[in-house]
C-alpha cells in the first residue's frame, strides 16, 4: 500500500530539508577567512605528507583479503543463530565443524606470516 510509505516519505523530506537548511545557513551566516592551513585536506589536524594518490603497501591487500574471507563466511552464522535453539546439540556440533575449518585457515595464514605487519 502506498499509504504505508507515507511516514518514510515524510522522514525523507525532513531529513533532506534539515541537511539543506543547515548547510545553507552556515554558508550564509558563517564568516569566511581562507588561510592556507584551512584549505588543506583534513588529516586529524596534522599537515598532510605527500600526495593522497600514492601507492598503498601490498600488506593492506593481504589484510583486506583475509578480512573478506573471514568476514563473509560468518554470514552462515546468521541463519544458524536464528534456529539454533531448535537444532540443539546437532546444530552446535555442525557449526563447530565449520568454525574449526575456518580456524585451520587462520592457523595457516598465521604460520605463513600473513598476520605479521613487518
Amino acid at each position: 500500500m502506498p499509504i504505508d510509505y507515507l511516514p518514510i516519505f515524510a522522514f525523507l523530506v525532513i531529513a533532506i530539508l534539515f541537511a539543506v537548511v543547515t548547510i545553507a545557513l552556515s554558508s550564509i551566516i558563517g564568516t569566511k577567512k581562507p588561510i592556507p592551513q584551512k584549505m588543506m585536506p583534513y588529516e586529524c589536524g596534522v599537515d598532510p605528507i605527500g600526495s593522497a594518490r600514492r601507492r598503498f603497501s601490498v600488506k593492506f591487500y593481504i589484510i583486506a583479503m583475509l578480512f573478506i574471507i573471514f568476514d563473509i563466511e560468518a554470514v552462515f552464522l546468521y541463519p544458524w543463530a536464528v534456529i539454533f535453539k531448535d537444532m540443539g546439540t546437532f546444530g552446535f556440533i555442525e557449526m563447530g565443524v565449520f568454525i574449526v575449518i575456518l580456524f585451520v585457515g587462520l592457523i595457516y595464514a598465521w604460520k605463513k606470516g600473513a598476520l605479521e605487519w613487518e
Partner: protein
Amino acid sequence: MDLVIPKIDVVSLGPELILSIAAIFVLLVSVFLPKGRKDPAAYLSLLGIFFAFVSSIFLWGNPRYSFNNMILVDNFALFFNSIFLIAAGLSILMSVNYLEEQEMSHGEFYALILFATVGMMFMAAGSNLITIFLGLETMSISIYVLAGFFRRSNKSNESALKYLLLGAFSSAFLLYGIAMMYGATGTTDLKGISEYLSKAAYLKDPMLLAGMGLLLVGFGFKIASVPFHMWTPDVYEGAPTSITAFMSVGVKAAAFAAFVRVFLYSLWNLQPDWNHVLWILAVLTMTLGNVVAISQNNIKRMLAYSSIAHAGYIMIGMVASSELGTSGILFYMLAYAFMNLGAFGVIILYGRKGEENLDINDYSGMGFKYPGLALLMTVFMFSLAGIPPTAGFVGKFYIFSAAIKSGYIWLAIIGVMNSLVSVYYYLRITVMMYMKEPVKEFAGLKWSPSMAIALIIAVIGTLLIGIFPSPYLDLARQSVQLFM
C-alpha cells in the same frame, strides 16, 4: 516452528570427506614442514586419494540420495569419482619432481589439487543445482590458484588471470541460468525440475528456455566447447604443465558429469529443444579444434585445441541421448584421462627449467635418443588420434556407433572425418620423433620414480582399455542404467 533435521548419512559422502580431511591435513602439515622438503605432502595426498578410491568402490552399486536430496550417490557419480581420482593421483605423481625442478615445491599445491577434486566430486554427485554450483566453484577457485601457481612466471600469471576472469564470467551465466530455472519451475532440485517438466502442459515458457540456454553457456565454458573456447589455449599454455593435464581431464570430466546430469536427466523433456543446439555445437567444436590444432607449433597449445576437439566428440554422445551414448561418454572420459595425462607427462619429463622444449620441432630426433620415452609418446598420440589397439579408438567407436543407432548418421560421419584430420597433427609428432634429425642437443632426462609410475599407469591404462574394453564398458553401462 517445526524443524526437521535431515538424516545425516556421512558414509555416502565418504570419498569427499576423506579427501577434504586429507586436504586440510596436507595444508597444515605443509606449513610445519621444513622449507624445500615437500614430498611428504605429496605422499599424504596420494594416501588420501587411495582411501577415497577405496571408499568409492565400497559405495558402488547402492544408489541413494542423502543430505535431504542434495547429493545422489549413484554409480554415475562413483564412476566419475574414479576418473577424478585417477587424474588427481597421476597429476600429483607427475608434479613432485616438476615442482622441485621449477623451485616451486609448496605443499599448498597438493592441497589445492585435493580441494579441486572434492569440488569435482560434488559436481558429479550433486542432485541439486545448489550442490552443482558449489562444487563448480570449489573446483574453479582452486584451479584459478593452481593455474597461477608459478607466481614468478609471467605466462602462468597471465593464464591465471584469463582463467579467473572468463571462468567467473561464465559461472555468473550459469548462476543466472539456475535462477531462471528456479523461477520457471519453482525448485532447484534436479528431480523436482524433471517432475515439473514431465507434468507441465506448456514447455515453451520463455523463462525456462532462457534458463536452459544460460545453463548451456555456463557448462559450455567449462567443457571448452565452441564458441566458448577462447580461454582454453592461453590458459593451457601458461599454466604449469601438470595442472594443464589435471585441468584438461578433471575439469572437463566434472563439467560433463554435471552437464549430462542436468540435461539428460533434469531437462529430458526439453530434449527436442536442446538437441539441435548441441548438434551444431558438437560439429563446430570438433571442426574448429582439429583444424586450428594443425597450425599450432607449441605442443601445449596443440593439445589444448585437441582437447577442444575431444569435447566435441564427447558432445556427440550427448546428442545421441541414449543409454549407449551416455555410457560412451563415461567410457571416453576414462580413456581420455589416461591418454591425455600420459601425453602431458611425457611433455613434463622432456622439458626442464629454462628449457621447456615445448616447440614441436624440439621433438625431432627424440626417437633415437630416448626410444622408451618416444615409444610412450607414440602410444598416447595414437590413442588420441583414435588408432587401434588403443583406448582412444574404442572410445570413439562407441560414441560414433551410439550416434548412428540414434539416427544421427551425418554427425557420425562428420566425427569420423574430424578424427581423420586429427591423425595428421598427432602423427606429425611421431614423424618428428622418428624421421627427423635432432635440431638441438639433448641435456638428458631426469627420470624420477614417481614420474615413471605415473607414465606406466597411464600407458597400461591406455592399452588395457584399448585391448580389453568390455569390462570397462560394462562398468560404464552400469553407471547409467538407473539414470535414464
